[in-house]
């Protein structure tokens, strides 16, 4: 249905923008192993994006590429969290920690969705996200407990990213209209809070006392970053309308 497609689109957009951000690390990591690890995560996440977008496109008569390359900024529904810049390695790790715990909870529930396709995509994705989560937990602990400098950088990363946490758990119309199909974001909050608090405690870090941004990416109201991300991502495809690659 149109609603299911719109819901799939939100999941696809989050993954697409996150993959775009993560892929920038390839050839720039702090060590070769991390080029591979972050690249693998980016590749998995791009895979999720493609599955969700392809499914969303079915109902809309569009391909994954129509949706990725030919929508305008206000038609994207990504969360502000995925749009945040990579920053230094610690910022990318904290962003990934926040998101992979979130996606793990989300996909675990979505795997039981009444929509079989979404359930199947989620069931496959959750296994991959499990690894992403482990990877970011491991790095959060290493960097939190590593040196004074690394702990300070992690505190800074938490501070600049935390304002975009609440948005991840906002229930929107699209979730409420699909009670059997969609996962209600607010239903994930409690578990997420518990899980991330435990990780941060293990890493000697704390949840920062920041404000919360009035972010509404699901409604097409985006951070100032998305325009730049799309300009780069879409530039080549848009120069060749109708072309096959």
């Amino acid at each position, binding site marked *: 249905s149109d609603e299911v497609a719109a819901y799939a689109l939100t999941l696809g957009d989050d993954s697409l923008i996150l993959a775009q951000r993560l892929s920038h690390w390839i050839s720039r990591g702090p060590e070769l192993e991390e080029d591979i690890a972050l690249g693998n995560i980016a*590749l998995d996440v791009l895979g999720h994006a493609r599955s969700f977008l392809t499914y969303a496109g079915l109902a809309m008569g569009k391909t994954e590429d129509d949706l990725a390359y030919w929508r305008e900024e206000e038609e994207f529904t990504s969360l502000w969290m995925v749009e945040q810049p990579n920053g230094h390695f610690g910022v990318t790790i904290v962003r990934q920690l926040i998101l992979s715990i979130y996606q793990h909870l989300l996909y675990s529930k979505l795997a039981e969705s009444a929509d079989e396709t979404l359930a199947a995509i989620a069931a496959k994705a959750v296994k991959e996200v499990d690894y992403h989560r482990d990877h970011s937990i491991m790095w959060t602990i*290493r*960097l939190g407990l590593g040196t004074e400098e690394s702990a300070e950088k992690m505190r800074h990363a938490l501070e600049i990213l935390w304002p975009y946490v609440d948005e991840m758990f906002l229930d929107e119309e699209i979730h409420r209209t699909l009670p059997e199909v969609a996962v209600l974001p607010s239903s994930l909050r409690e578990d997420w809070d518990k899980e991330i608090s435990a990780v941060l405690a293990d890493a000697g870090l704390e949840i920062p006392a920041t404000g919360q941004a009035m972010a509404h990416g699901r409604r097409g109201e985006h951070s100032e970053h998305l325009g730049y991300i799309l300009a780069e991502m879409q530039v080549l495809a848009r120069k060749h309308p109708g072309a096959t690659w």
Partner: protein
Amino acid sequence: EQAQARFDALIDKDSRVEPRDWMPAPYRKTLTRQVSQHAHSEIIGMQPEANWITRAPSLKRKSILMAKVQDEAGHGLYLYSAAETLGTPRDELNEQLLTGRAKYSSIFNYPARSWADMGAIGWLVDGAAIANQVPLCRASYGPYGRAMVRICKEESFHQRQGFEILLSLSRGTEAQKKMAQDAVNRFYEPSLMMFGPPDDQSPNSKQSMAWNIKRFSNDELRQRFVGMIAEQVKVLGLTLPDPELRFDEEKKQWIHKDLNWDEFMAVIKGNGPVNAQRLERRREAHREGAWVREAAAAYAAKQAQSEVA
């Protein structure tokens, strides 16, 4: 003396030398240089392709390209491991790269200016690499030969992907076809030079062949490669930028235009279009990652200590 005799015997019967075996110092040195250069080439070679990941024109191509660049990082890792079995630690090899003392394949000192370069690099650069590397699967040093087996398998996959990119472009719009031809024009000559100078100007080749590291001369390999791409370019519906190219039935060899060895030497010396950029990117990643590596080491040390206590 006995050790030398055992080594010579191994080479004679075309057997494998293993890390535990005694080997002559020059053999070790030559191999260390070759394997580490090869590893460096994989690592630097990620950059031209990483340049197009965020701009790939379809999600499928983006995904394939990301996987390919990942594979290259993986190849780098195997090869550093193989080089380490010869006694030089990875940190030291990396240091040689960052300070510019070690070389890597010159082809990566050309910029990747358009999406079609992802095709040309796959088809021509990976193609030339495979022509070079397939015989190395039988290299006399065990860890190197085995790494090459694994690498060659993936490389031929990459080459096919590059070919497919060019094929899609050449069957696409006029602008796409032009983009493809332009990329082939730019990468043709540098890819032929990937096999190194002509045989009569390649003094080290002979020793490498005697040691069963190298199996064919530079010119032999170049001949095979030219023959291959001369056929494949027809399928692509593109042309090679070499009006002189033809198979000489009498000499039984391919005649191609004179290659610009002056440019080749200039690029090797550091004066290619993007030598400076490629090295600086590596240095920057190393510099910016220093605090991460230090933290990881500090954490590991603390863990080790608490396990002891």
